């Protein structure tokens, strides 16, 4: 393992992996929330045309890709706002046009080879230069800072845009910010994961976060943790297995997701065995409902005809009445503290 960190290109690769692993899920969660999980894929297609323009004109491909992808992201958002029936087709034209233009232009560029195209499509960590790392670091820090500071506002707008408008939030502006952040993330991640798999690193860690988290905040934290672990793990794995970094990272993210789903199902099964729902319950407990409230550990039970009822999801659980000291079966029926 030690020799890994001694290689300069591996140091670059690992730094890039950490940056991408942090930034991609932080943006991706809002795309999941807006049910736009596949939009990053389309932006990856547009980015390829940007890369090709850079290669053909001798400009820095990262820069041209960034400009074109940001422009594309803004266009996507404006097309969505216009809300025409043909918006879906307009997006398809833009995405396929980007990919096709990229492939054609790259074939005309003297500086490029099929291997060069593959590097952009599937990620090639080995070609990441020191300049690239600095650019990626700046972009990733911007993405992280904006998503952190604006987290509640982006959440509010994605959760209920109509309500957000009534409290005076700039809904369109916030959606444009999210679109631009997505574009920046796509460009930042393209060298590590590749343009074809870029969306995966924005979405898959969030799929895991949704399984493991119990709130929006904790789901995002899980997603970022999973993102960093998978992208660093994928880069290290790709070094030893001589596989492309992008595919390796995405497969790692899928394995983690499946493990979380299976683990969650087992936990739910065990939890179901430990808890007992109250009989059909027409009454809604709450302060002032007429039933005495009893503090029970970390929650409140309501004493209802000699039964202790605790709110649990859409129903009420039967909790054991407080037992005398010395009874070692106390809490046997209570659910675990959250």
């Amino acid at each position: 393992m030690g020799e890994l960190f001694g290689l300069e290109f591996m140091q670059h690769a690992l730094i890039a992996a950490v940056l991408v692993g942090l930034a991609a899920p932080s943006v991706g969660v809002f795309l999941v929330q807006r049910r736009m999980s596949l939009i990053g894929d389309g932006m990856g297609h547009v980015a390829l045309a940007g890369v090709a323009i850079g290669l053909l004109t001798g400009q820095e491909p990262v820069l041209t890709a960034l400009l074109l992808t940001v422009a594309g992201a803004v266009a996507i958002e404006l097309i969505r706002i216009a809300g025409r029936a043909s918006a879906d087709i307009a997006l398809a034209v833009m995405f396929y046009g980007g990919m096709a233009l990229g492939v054609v232009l790259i074939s005309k560029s003297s500086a490029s080879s099929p291997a060069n195209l593959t590097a952009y499509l599937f990620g090639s960590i080995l070609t990441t230069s020191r300049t690239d790392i600095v650019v990626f670091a700046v972009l990733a820090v911007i993405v992280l800072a904006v998503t952190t500071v604006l987290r509640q506002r982006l959440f509010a707008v994605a959760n209920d845009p109509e309500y957000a408008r009534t409290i005076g939030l700039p809904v369109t502006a916030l959606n444009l910010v999210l679109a631009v952040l997505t574009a920046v993330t796509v460009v930042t991640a393209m060298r590590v994961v590749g343009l074809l798999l870029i969306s995966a690193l924005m979405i898959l860690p969030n799929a895991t976060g949704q399984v493991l988290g119990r709130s929006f905040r904790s789901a995002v934290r899980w997603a970022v943790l999973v993102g960093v672990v998978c992208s660093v793990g994928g880069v290290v794995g790709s070094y030893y297995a001589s596989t492309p970094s992008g595919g390796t990272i995405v497969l790692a993210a899928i394995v983690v997701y499946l493990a979380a789903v299976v683990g969650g199902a087992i936990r739910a099964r065990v939890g179901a065995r430990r808890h007992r729902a109250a009989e059909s319950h027409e009454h809604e407990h709450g302060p002032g409902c007429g039933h005495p409230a009893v503090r029970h550990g970390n929650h409140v039970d309501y004493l209802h005809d000699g039964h202790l009822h605790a709110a649990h999801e859409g129903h009420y659980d039967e909790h054991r009445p407080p037992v005398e000291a010395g009874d070692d079966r106390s809490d046997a029926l209570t659910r675990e503290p959250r």
Partner: protein
Amino acid sequence: MQLSTDPVITVRDGSFGYGDRAVVTHVDLDLHPGDVVAVLGPNGSGKTTLVKGLLGLDAHLGGDVELFGVPRRQFRDHARIGYVPQRHSLSASVRATVSEIVAVGRLPHRPWWRRASARDHQAVRDALQTVGLLDRADAEVATLSGGQQRRVLIARALAGDADVLVMDEPTAGVDAANQEVLATVLESLAAQGRTMLVVTHELEALELIVNRIVCIRAGIVDFDGSPQAYAAHEVAHARDHVHHHPHVLDEEPTTIVDDAGPLDAHEHRGAGHG
């Protein structure tokens, strides 16, 4: 709650709709501090369009709307209006807790770069206390019943310390047990002197608190007056029309038992207004 008697909402010959199609026209309406007004009317009559038009969500096609004395288009003091939209369920595309949803109501109170303060957190807890969901603050909204989710939306509007609550069908499609809780919540808000404009087609839950009724039929305000006058109006309307309106006011009013639980004796805030 407020000492001022300046109207909270004023509409003069307002018309509202979608695009350039007017759904409600010639609306004149004044809402004063402390008013609890029910907006009634059959489905499709334009109640929701009126409310969304007042808030600038649907197109405002003509006439004047003033919010707290400011023309709607210039109105910027968004925190003063608490909107409770009609939602059958809260968006469940990602996990979110009850307090995370309610905290959104605090956003107009601080600039974009500032984090939530202790006061913001307290306002969220107070709002949840008022709607009786403080014990579910960390529960995921998707696990709550429809009626509980409705109360989450009310709490979100309350968290913003709004001067007026504008609610769209807060009790529609809610089971009986939750109807009763919602009625109690609305009563306690009325007792605090909150100004409310409530769109509903189920007057029962509001009967004890409403001091004025506005009825919209086929896009125009068909009645605006006291609940007693409304009952007489309905009788006349039923006599004149073959199809009659479902609200019958001479039923037994719903009795709401208002006995407090032991935990709210020392936690309940702001009782005794109004």
